[in-house]
C-alpha cells in the first residue's frame, strides 16, 4: 500500500510541478511565439523600381495586423496575433512593426543609413531598421529628407519625436488619413489624424520613387 501511495504522491507532485511549468512556459511563450514561429531573416531583394502605389499596397497588407515595439514582422490575416503584449517590453516577439519599423519597411530602406537604394523586405522578414521616429523627423539617412508639410502627398510621412505615420489619403476637411503602427492597443491601421497642422510633427519624404 505504501508503494502505491508513494507512486500516487510522486505522480501528483510531478504532475503539479510539470503542469505549472507547462502553463508558465505556454504563457511566457505566447508573447514570443509569433516571431520565433513565423518570421524569417532572409536577405532583402534590391529593387530599382518602386512606386507610391506599390508601397501603399505593401502598407495595406499590414493593415489590421499587430503592433510590436521594436518589431517588424507581420502576416496578412487581419488579426493581431499577439494581442496584449506588455507595452514596456520590446522583446516579447509579437506580431507587427512599431511606427518607425513599419515606415522603414514600407519605404523599402536599407539598414545602411548611407544607402539610398530600395530593398524589398517582405512582410514576414523580421527587421526594424536603424531609424527611430525622431531620426526620420530630422531627415536622417540618405533616402530621407525633411519636407514642407503643405506639400506632402501620399506615402510621405509626418513624424514627431515619438511617432511617425505615412499619408494614405487627404480628406475634404483638411485632415489626413494616416497609415501607421500606432501602439499595442491600436495595432496597424488607417486613421484620420491632424498631424499635418500639429507643430510637434514635421514632414518627411522618402526620395527615389519611380512613380
Amino acid at each position: 500500500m505504501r508503494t502505491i501511495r508513494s507512486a500516487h504522491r510522486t505522480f501528483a507532485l510531478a504532475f503539479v510541478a510539470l503542469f505549472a511549468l507547462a502553463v508558465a512556459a505556454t504563457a511566457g511563450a505566447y508573447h514570443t511565439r509569433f516571431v520565433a514561429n513565423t518570421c524569417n531573416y532572409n536577405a532583402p531583394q534590391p529593387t530599382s523600381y518602386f512606386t507610391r502605389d506599390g508601397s501603399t499596397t505593401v502598407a495595406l497588407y499590414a493593415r489590421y495586423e499587430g503592433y510590436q515595439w521594436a518589431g517588424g514582422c507581420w502576416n496578412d490575416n487581419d488579426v493581431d496575433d499577439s494581442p496584449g503584449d506588455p507595452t514596456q517590453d520590446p522583446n516579447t516577439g509579437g506580431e507587427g512593426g512599431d511606427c518607425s519599423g513599419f515606415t522603414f519597411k514600407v519605404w523599402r530602406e536599407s539598414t545602411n543609413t548611407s544607402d539610398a537604394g530600395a530593398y524589398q523586405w517582405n512582410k514576414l522578414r523580421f527587421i526594424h531598421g536603424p531609424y527611430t521616429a525622431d531620426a526620420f523627423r530630422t531627415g536622417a539617412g540618405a533616402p530621407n529628407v525633411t519636407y514642407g508639410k503643405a506639400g506632402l502627398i501620399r506615402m510621405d510621412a509626418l513624424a514627431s519625436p515619438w511617432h511617425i505615420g505615412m499619408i494614405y489619403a487627404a480628406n475634404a476637411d483638411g485632415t489626413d488619413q494616416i497609415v501607421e503602427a500606432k501602439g499595442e492597443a491600436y495595432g496597424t491601421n488607417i486613421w484620420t489624424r491632424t498631424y499635418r497642422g500639429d507643430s510637434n510633427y514635421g514632414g518627411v519624404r522618402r526620395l527615389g520613387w519611380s512613380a
Partner: protein
Amino acid sequence: MTHPRAGRLGTRDRRRGRTLAALTGAAAGATVAAVLLALAGSAVAHRLDRADKPPGDLIEATHLPPLLTAPGDPTELRYDIYCAAPDGDPESGAPCDAGGTVYVRPGDSGPFQALPLRLDASASTGRYVAELPESVSRAPAGFSYYAVLRNQRSGATTTLPPAGALAPQRSRPLSAPVAIRLGTHVFGAARRASARVAAAAWGGGPDEVGLEQGPQLGPIGASSFDVDATGAVVVLDEANRRALRFERPGRGPRILPLDVRGTIADLALEADGGIDVLETVAERGETPLVRAFDAQGRARGAWHIAGANASAVRAGPDGPVALQYPAGQWTPVVEHGRGLTVDEQRRRGRAGRPLPGGDELVVQRVGREARVAIVGRQGVRRSWQIESDTPLAEIQLAEPLGSRVVLVMRVYTEARDEFEVLVLDGSGVASRFAVDAPAWAETAPLARFRLRGSALYALGSTPAGMFVDRYDLEVS
C-alpha cells in the same frame, strides 16, 4: 510473522518497489502534463495560424471629392487604386493592373453616364482620372457620382462611396459665395479665454484624467469632450474608461464610468444629456462602434459603423451621426433609438453634416482656401470662400449660430500652429480671433472645439493636465 531474511529481502524489495513506483509516478505525471501542454500549445497555435488572405483579394481606393466647386477648379475626378501587383509577388512594389468606371450625372436624379478611368502615369497622386463633360461639370446644380474600381487581373472590385448609386458622392458649385481674404496669420496674438471651465491633472484619481500608456506612444488622453445646454462640460477620460462631468468651475468633476475600449474616441452629447462615444479602434475583424450611454453613464446600446473607420461623431437630428471613411460621408448610425444596419447607414450617406430641419453643412479645404456651404433641398443656400496666405490644416468646427456660421480652422507653419476662429455672416466676417490651445496630449482628430449657445469651448492640454476654456463670441 516474517522471516528475518525474508524481512531483509522484503525491505529491499519494498525500497526497490517504492523507487520504481516513484519513477513510474513521475513519468506518468510528466506524460500527462506533456499531453496537456501539447493540447494547450495546439490551442494557441490554432489562434496564431489563422490563414492569410489571398493577396489578389486586396482592392482599396482613395478619392478626394470636390464637394464644393468654384470657377477655375479642375473638371476631372481623380482616384488612386491599390491592389496586388500583377507579377505574382504582392509585395514587389509594382503598381497593380487597375481600372474602373465613374458613373456621373448632373444634379441628383436621372441616369448615370459611365466614364472610364484612364491612367495618368505622370501623376504622383490621383493617378486614375476621368474627365467630366461640360454638361456635368457646369451643371448649375452640380453633379452626383460614384465609381467602381477593379483589379483587372483578379477581378476584385470596390465601389466608392460603397452604396454606389443609392448614396452617390455629391459635388455642388459654391453659389455666389461670400469671399473673404484672411491675409497672413499673426502668431502669438491669440485671444485670452473668457473662462477656464474645466481642468484636471493627469492621473487615475477622482479629479484626474488618464494618459494612455506605451513606448513610442506619444501622450494620449482626454481624447474628446462636449458641452451640454447648461454649460456643463463632459470630458471623455478614455484611459480610465469614464467620463468626467464638470458642472461648475472650481469644483471637482462627477465621475461617470463608461464601458469603452480605452483608446482614442470621440464624444458627443445628445439633447437629453445622453453620451455618444465613437471608438476609433475596432475589435478583431470588426468595424468601430458607436456606444450610447444615458446621462448617468448607463449603456443604451452599441452599434457598428458601416465604414472601416470614422473621424467624428455628432448629435444628429435623429441620433448620432458619424463622418465615415472610405466613403467620406456623414452617416447616421442610430435613428430614433434604432441602430441602422450597414446597408441602411450607407444608403443615408451625405456630403455634409445633417442639421435640424433638413439642411446640411458642407465644408472643404482646398489648398489655402476653406469653403463652407449651407445646403438645402434646393441646393446651396449660403456659402463662404475663405482664402488664407498662411497654410490651412483641418477645419476643426463648422456650426450654425442663428443666421451665422462659426468656423474654426487650424493655421500652421513648419514650427507653429494656432486656430483661426471666424463668425461668418452674409457680408463676411462678423467676428474673428485666434486661439492658442496647446495640445500636449493627442485627442480624437475633430475633438478640439465645441459650440454651445454663443460660446466656443476649446480642449487643450499641457504636461500638467488637460483643460477646457470658454470663449464668449460676443455676437448678438
